[in-house]
């Protein structure tokens, strides 16, 4: 049990860290990572949803008939997402404006549904929540990383603070759409390189 707990907890942080190991949830990774702050906010919102939805779905897993499995999961997830939406609006309004429709779109983020299906529907609530938490936090870390890179090099700031001083001419294409694709592409390549260097058998292609 202890072993499994640690395994599950750490899995999301490296073994299946989205969106790199688990190439899922790319849309928000691309869309909202203009800055480290946005990335972190989005990541935490997703982490919140995935943790609670894993818990809820795991508790309900024996009640829900197979035919309406996905539909029920979607309803549960959508509810949680709506709550997050309201919470963000009430307490972090500027952030919620920045993230815009990507907050409600957490509903269709494959990570949430994916973890619900792959893990929560087969495991008891507590461990499912641990799994959701782990993957969610992993996702938040990734998004913050992507956001940081794009913000530092694309705008010369990090969480709004100047990094390079005034003289730095930021590569502003990084904060727009093309930069998003390229940053993640490059990070993915680095991760592949690392996996290859470590000699892992399964390489995500």
């Amino acid at each position, binding site marked *: 049990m202890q072993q499994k707990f640690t395994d599950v907890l750490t899995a999301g942080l490296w073994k299946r860290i989205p969106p790199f190991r688990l*190439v899922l949830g790319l849309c928000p990774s691309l869309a909202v990572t203009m800055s480290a702050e946005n990335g972190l906010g989005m990541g935490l919102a997703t982490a919140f949803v995935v943790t609670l939805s894993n818990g809820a779905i795991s508790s309900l897993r024996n009640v829900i008939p197979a035919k309406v499995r996905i539909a029920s999961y*979607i309803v549960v997830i959508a*509810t949680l997402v709506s709550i997050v939406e309201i919470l963000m609006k009430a307490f972090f309004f500027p952030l919620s404006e920045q993230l815009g429709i990507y907050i409600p779109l957490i509903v*269709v983020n494959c990570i949430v549904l994916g973890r619900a299906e792959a893990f929560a529907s087969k495991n008891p609530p507590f461990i499912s929540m641990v799994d959701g938490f782990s993957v969610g936090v992993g996702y938040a870390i990734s998004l913050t990383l992507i956001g940081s890179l794009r913000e530092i090099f694309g705008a010369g700031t990090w969480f709004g603070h100047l990094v390079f001083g005034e003289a730095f001419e930021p590569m502003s294409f990084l904060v727009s759409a*093309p930069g*998003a694709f390229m940053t993640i*592409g490059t990070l993915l390549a680095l991760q*592949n390189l690392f996996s290859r260097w470590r000699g892992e058998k399964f390489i995500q292609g």
Partner: protein
Amino acid sequence: MDLVYLAISATFVNNILLAQYLGNCPFLGVSKKLETALGMAAAVIFVSVLAATFTWMVSTYVLRPYGLEFLQTLTFILIIASLVQLVEIIMKKMSRTLYNALGVYLPLITTNCAVMGIALLIAKKQLPFIEMLVFACTSAVGYGLALVLFAGHRERLQISAVPESLQGTSIALITAGIMALAFMGFKGMA
């Protein structure tokens, strides 16, 4: 004239995939072959219009008049999911050819953020009916366009000498970035 602006804006300038980043998971998934990309594009257009119409109706005639906008996310996803599943079931039975060409992509669309995104954008912009139809259709066409163009690139990529670590999703994303760069050029049309 406004409708033309709206159409151009939705298809090119604010391309739902390359500028709004919606629907990327299937974008990377089904763009490996031109054939699948075409099927997916057609399915997205079909479902987007259908889903947008239904969600628009619910949003305009139920949610907004009764002040239930906070239920928007929940109702939209529920409607889209059921609608897609229904269409799939019917299509599978009615026409196997149509199902193979189009229907197999339907489940993929349930969780496609592009479809949901279009519905949400329409609700946010509070477009009237005709504009809604044009917007939904042209956004989806923009998605299809990007998908098909990208599939062409990836077919070519398959036989290119790509460094080992960059192979697969990695190079695909970077290529998509370059395409997005090209689509940025459309912004000059504003």
